[in-house]
């Protein structure tokens, strides 16, 4: 794709990414009362973007696919940062939070999953997309089916096989 043809897509992506980062961080800052689900996030981001007249490639489904990708990128980038921070510092750390167990192992696991998912994409691209939608974007089965243009039964089948495959890979990885 040449740049001029991709320009719209790039703008689209960067806006989606930016919005989702903001939204994700707002929800996850601990504001549980907001009861925002990932689907709500994506829909809100879509409404904002749809109102922006810059976007010519503006279909909601298309956007949602991009949003799922953006969610994955946000989380993987966050994991990478956490991991790097952990490696980079051998010092005793002062903390004001004792709920750190989860934070210890999760980043490495997420990075391993991201890598395994890249491998799965080579074996079965649609299954990898299904994982992206279900796991990283938090979409449910009907939403994922609509997004990928397949039946719900296919989503369930793909998810089940992909989940098992990824679990095996992650198990091997560590």
């Amino acid at each position, binding site marked *: 794709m040449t740049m001029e*043809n991709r320009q719209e897509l790039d703008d689209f992506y960067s806006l989606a990414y930016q919005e989702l980062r903001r939204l994700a961080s707002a929800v996850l800052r601990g504001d549980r009362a907001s009861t925002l689900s990932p689907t709500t996030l994506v829909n809100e981001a879509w409404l904002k973007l749809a109102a922006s007249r810059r976007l010519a490639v503006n279909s909601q489904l298309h956007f949602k696919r991009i949003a799922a990708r953006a969610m994955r990128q946000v989380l993987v980038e966050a994991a990478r940062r956490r991991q790097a921070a952990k490696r980079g510092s051998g010092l005793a750390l002062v903390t004001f939070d004792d709920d750190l167990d989860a934070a210890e192992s999760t980043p490495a696991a*997420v990075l391993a999953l991201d890598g395994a998912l890249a491998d799965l994409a080579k074996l079965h691209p649609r299954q990898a997309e299904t994982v992206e939608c279900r796991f990283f974007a938090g979409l449910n089965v009907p939403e994922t089916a609509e997004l990928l243009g397949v039946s719900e039964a296919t989503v369930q089948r793909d998810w089940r096989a992909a989940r098992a495959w990824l679990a095996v890979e992650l198990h091997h990885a560590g």
Partner: protein
Amino acid sequence: MDSGRWARIESVFHEVADRPAADRPGLVAAACQDDPTLIPQVMALLEQDGSPHRLLDRAVGDLAGTLLGNPGSHRFDPEAFRPYRLKSPLGEGGMGIVFLAEREDLGNLVAIKILRDAWLSPGRRQRFLTEQKTLARLTHPNIARLYDADTLPDGTPWFVMEYVDGLPLTEHCVATSAPVAERIRLFRAVVAAVDHAHAHGVIHRDLKPSNILVKSDGSVRLLDFGIAKAVDPEPEGHRTTAPLMTPAYAAPEQLRGEPAGVATDVYSLGVILYELLAGRLPFGLPRVGGAPIPTGHVATRPSVAAKEAGPVRPPVSTASPSAWADLDTLCLTAMHDDPDRRYQSAAALGRDLDHFLAGRALEARPDSLPYQVGRFLNRRGRLLLAAVVLFTLGAAAARLIGPTPLAAAPAVTVMPLRTEPLDSIAAHLPVALAEEITTALGGTPGLTVRPVAPAGRPGAGEADPVQVGRDTRATSVVSGRVRRIGGTIRVELEAVDVATGKRVWADVVEVPAGDPIALHTALAGRARLSLAAALGAPAGAATSATRPRHPDAYDRYLRSVGAGYDPGASNDSGIAMLEQAVALDSTYAPAWLALARRYYMKARFETGDSVLLERTLTSTQRAVALDPDYVVAGARMAGSLIERGQLAAAYQQLTQLVARRPDSPDAHFWLSYVLRFAGLTEESNRECATALSLDPHNFGWRSCAVAAMARDDYDGARGYLALDPRSEWTKALGLHLLVRAGRVDEARQLDPPRMPQWKSYTLLLACLANRPQAEVTALAAAVVPDSDPEANYFAAAHLAWCGLTDASLSLLGHAIRGNYCSFPVMDADPLFARTRAAKGYAEVREAGRACQRDFLAARAAPPSADAE
């Protein structure tokens, strides 16, 4: 494992997965008879299928909560803040965490504010640094002072400020049962602080009692310049502030999304004064989840509100009726919904407070108060609803594009038409007809037609045309309404001049509902003639546009245009409709172009199918053959040809288009694009300059910065980038520009662009930061060839600058094989300085030279020589 093997394993897995566990080993063995090596893999899958997984079964919200951090879960190296030592968290705002800290050597207490998750968004980092910069400018006894600032090793910024141990203004007044005079005195100190900030060019923008603390000694401190901005016109970026402020204290014009200024701070001060006097907010807004909701309470003068609130909270009895009349005037003048009728400065408000405290007459004169309050409320009620909507949806996305001066040359935006609920016969018309008007106007010489999103925009017809015009930098906007009345379709259209807001043209078309051709004839005719003239098109109508001849074909075309471009089923049905349309009537050019667009979408976003790309080109060629003046089709055809590497064919196509439509900036721009691919920098820049002079406000010209840079014209390049100041693309090229211009210190300050496929920019920044070789090598490995050959040239340049010569030459080779000739640009590009000394350079250079030579030879030859 390959995909075939995975398919087999998966199939056995599904076959067996729901059978009783005891039967599975036997079933698997039976199913894998021909290849027993599959058995352990299937069994491993089955084992995982039945067990919970600690990562894969987590909800994304929970996962993100862990990764992105909960309040207070940040760990900081205690040495990092020396000579300060963190003691305890004081609080957390939208941006940062504030800790109480002690200065080890002196023992005094300070507050340290640290930006949370600094990497998350450059915008937040910028706002944080702005606050710091702002505080540094201000020295006032009533403003918390900035002492120190630094950055953690990971780049997280933090600053040290005065620790204020106190209560929020309103709480303090309640806790101490402060009499009115004391409240006014405290408020006077706040006004003095705000006036000081204004005098130093700072607008606070988020004045509210929780940002104003009263210390136990009775002194006042104004805090939190987190969303403050400079009054002077520093470029502000696309950051929207509407959702950041606190609506209850925001001025009406601020809620409308207009820029904040002195007057908006004065308004907020008025609300605070009201709250201090009346014991509640002026409009009875309970705060739910941080956002106010209208409750239908009736706002009253502060004096009346204070009485209603009863004797407990505001000390009504301490003020006389005449004092209350003055306080009402003070408050309502500060809070006037018309900014021109407010106090014109914090200083003016302060003077009247002084007059009040000294028992003198006020400078402000009351409006007719009942009138003012009533009027105020009506407008305010609506505005508050708007504020709630803003909070729900986030920033008004229209403001992604800031207000800008308008072009003098006529440019028009056609909005999707408004509609009332339409039956299925006409539901596609609002979008389809707007597209038709756009197409018809597009054939008008000397008139620029701005692209508008074709479909799928909820509530598109509700937007304000003048605002749409500003956003799209148009001089006029066409909007209208389509209705079905019995057996008739009625279309009402009007054009509004963006500068004056006045209607410059209006017309009504009525045709029988079953006659789409008549609809086209009427609309296109009016658009080309009376509308184009009213919009300021210099002369004449388009000549050779095609028109639909077959009602069913045209109906299908209109339906496909109204259907949007969703990948999958809706695009497929759009393709089917258009294929039928062109089969029935092969002479209507827009139908061919619409079909080409849909083929392209499918090829690019769904299947990656080269047959579809082929059809994209042939459909576009049909459109161009039918209407050689059809600029959109001509440009698209050139784009397809460039994408296929047929540079000379694209060049010929575009020179013909330019000859036919010399007034079309798009034609010139696309010509510059193909010339850039051919490495003909001077010619490319000339076409860019022409495009820019014909349409000085089209963000599409941004990539002309590449051509400008190629001749070391950095000012010119910045000018092109400024056409699209907020995009990630511009950010990336801005970084490239600084490095190319040798301004590496400035480049180092930048954040990487967020487009994930642009890995080479991350690499470039790592090299700029002198990161360890291992890290650079790892980042370089992630730089892989892109489908855009020009992107490969840039990536090659970044690798070259980092000294990764082999990788650089390899990507440069990719660029050239994609017909981005790169010659002779590579010989002069400073980023390639080291690579030019390398052994393989001559060979790659020769390939680039051949690429350009082939182009020059082909364009010199007669057109047929370049046929496929």
